[in-house]
């Protein structure tokens, strides 16, 4: 059913569009998908999610191209790829670096898809037993892991996340029907749509940042010919341990919503520590490209598992896809596996195919995509702003949303510069209403007794894990202090 010519064509379009989006500054996986979401409303849901999932994948590939050839990470998760990828390009080994990066992405994504195939139905079956307290504890785990796993200040993560929850609360209260936080402005009644926030925060914010940094396009050229590809493929098997480790890190970080960015950094860091050539990392080691790319793709793909099985997205892009599911009338969560079997398995099957198709497309079209980056910024920038504005407008056909988009753009610019993380803000905005509902239902069942979150082994275990993650920065610091005392 997936293999209809229409769907195959959509896959190709999705991959190519995705790479273009990933290569352009200001457009990335999450907001690229958000902008194109309205165009898929008329398609059948399976086809629609295929296009969107493929765009996201293409964007992951596209990020690697800019990192290696231009030392410009198109996406946050490809920052770690620049460490060794760009030095390789400078030494004239761009083709090798690109082949390694694409192949590693392929391996990472493939492992994640296999994992989804076997694990998702189990998780969904398990989750069918979930009640409101269990669901809230999973939400809690999601958000606590952001605080525990984040690189920056935990208080900034908390502030950004809670701002997301507050924005989600604006408008009609879904339980009592009361209007909240609108202060008499009827325009606020609709609330803030997270798609607008994604387009503004990631799109406009990124353009403003790029403008400030003053992009100079001094890229390396790359040609990939079959000889380079084959030679690189011969070298890659010796890094199997790095690949395996990176896959595991990526899958873990994708399921618990750490996301692709921390996964790539963590994987690079660990590879550097464990490798025999660790001290040479940063000078153009193939292994330094393999590690972050494998982890980023494994994480990006496995973020779909909690989205499908629990209705809890592991990354901003998965959140946008989740928004799409709701619009197409599909209720994400454990029941999806029972009621919409065709859809779920169609999506999973298409992920196997897309992985192969994606590898072929990027290996053959690199020079073409690199040429896009040579288009001057003063042409690209206004076009991207126009595309963002159109994307923001089409979500609700509301003029006001374009203003919101601009506002979120400024917030995104300031927050990025001050190291406030944007992903928790977006996820809180998406999940805010549902997290609140499950919390209130749990409280209703328990008559306001917080002990409901420890009432059985399952919910208690998840809650404990969540609290452990929440206080992880504190625990790590205490342990560090302890060690310093001992020394």
């Amino acid at each position, binding site marked *: 059913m997936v293999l209809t010519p229409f769907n195959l064509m959509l896959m190709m379009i999705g991959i190519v569009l995705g790479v273009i989006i990933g290569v352009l500054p200001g457009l990335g996986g999450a907001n690229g998908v958000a902008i194109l979401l309205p165009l898929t409303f008329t398609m059948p849901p399976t086809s629609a999610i295929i296009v969107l999932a493929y765009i996201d994948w293409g964007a992951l590939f596209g990020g690697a191209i800019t990192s290696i050839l231009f030392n410009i990470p198109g996406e946050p998760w490809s920052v770690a790829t620049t460490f060794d990828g760009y030095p390789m390009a400078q030494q004239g080994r761009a083709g090798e670096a690109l082949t390694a990066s694409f192949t590693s992405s392929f391996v990472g994504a493939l492992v994640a898809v296999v994992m989804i195939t076997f694990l998702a139905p189990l998780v969904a079956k398990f989750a069918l037993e979930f009640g409101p307290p269990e669901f809230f504890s999973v939400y809690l785990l999601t958000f606590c892991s952001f605080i525990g796993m984040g690189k920056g200040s935990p208080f900034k993560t908390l502030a950004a996340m809670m701002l997301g929850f*507050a924005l989600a609360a604006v408008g009609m*209260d879904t339980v009592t029907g009361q209007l909240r936080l609108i202060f008499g402005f009827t325009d606020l009644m609709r609330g803030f749509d997270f798609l607008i926030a994604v387009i503004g925060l990631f799109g406009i914010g990124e353009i403003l940042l790029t403008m*400030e940094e003053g992009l100079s396009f001094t890229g390396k050229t790359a040609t990939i010919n079959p000889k380079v590809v084959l030679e690189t493929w011969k070298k890659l098997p010796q890094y199997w341990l790095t690949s395996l480790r990176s896959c595991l890190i990526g899958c873990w970080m994708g399921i618990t919503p750490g996301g692709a960015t921390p996964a790539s950094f963590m994987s690079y860091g660990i590879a550097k520590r464990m490798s025999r050539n660790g001290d040479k990392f940063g000078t153009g080691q193939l292994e330094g490209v393999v590690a972050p790319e494998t982890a980023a793709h494994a994480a990006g793909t496995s973020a779909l598992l909690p989205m499908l099985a629990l209705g809890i997205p592991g990354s901003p892009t998965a959140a946008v896809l989740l928004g799409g599911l709701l619009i197409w009338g599909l209720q994400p969560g454990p029941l999806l596996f029972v009621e919409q079997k065709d859809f779920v398995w169609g999506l999973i099957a298409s992920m196997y195919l897309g992985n192969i198709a994606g590898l072929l497309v990027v290996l053959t079209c690199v020079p073409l995509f690199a040429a896009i980056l040579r288009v001057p910024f003063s*042409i690209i920038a206004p076009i991207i702003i126009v595309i963002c504005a159109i994307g923001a407008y089409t979500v609700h056909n509301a003029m006001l949303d374009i203003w919101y988009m601009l506002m979120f753009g400024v917030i995104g610019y300031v927050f990025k*510069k001050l190291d406030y993380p944007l992903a928790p803000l977006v996820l809180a905005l998406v999940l805010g209403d549902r997290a609140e509902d499950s919390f209130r239902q749990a409280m209703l069942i328990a008559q306001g007794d917080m002990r409901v979150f420890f009432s059985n082994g399952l919910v208690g275990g998840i809650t404990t894990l969540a609290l452990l993650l929440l206080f992880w920065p504190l625990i790590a610091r205490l342990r560090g202090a302890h060690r310093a005392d001992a020394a």
Partner: protein
Amino acid sequence: MDENQKAGRGDRAGISMRAAEIIVALLVFALGAIVVFDSYRLGSKWGSDGPQSGYFPFYVGLLICISSLVTFVQALLTKSGHGELFVTWGPLKLVLTVLIPAAVYVIGVQYVGLYVASTIYIAVFMVWLGKYSWFKSVAVGLSVNVSLFLMFEVWFKVPLFKGSLEPLRFLGY
């Protein structure tokens, strides 16, 4: 691109990181306070039939206030002599040269609609910041918007905003 080189030579003066941290923390705190205030007004306690509307947002607002206060204090305690800058005036000017026209563009959309405003915006941006000739700029603006028009209105049948003046009414869409 020469405007970028200018930015590179730009002066070392600008808004300090510390000042920016403090201002943002205060703004976030104010937002948190608004949330707390409105949630309290709606009822943040336990009603006769369960938690009231403000129950959940009340604590959300409280957490915003607490976390921004910590960030505020942390920023105050860092030494001002650190010299780290949030943004220097040169790049800030560049950011504003994108942001202000973008705002003007959105106002334009309101009156003449997305297609017409976008064409003008792309062309003016290219002439002003990219120093391209008028002919080239208008050509790029027009071709981008004609393709957008075909894609949205004709192929996908998604109508975009035509503006209150509807300058494109003669096309029949």
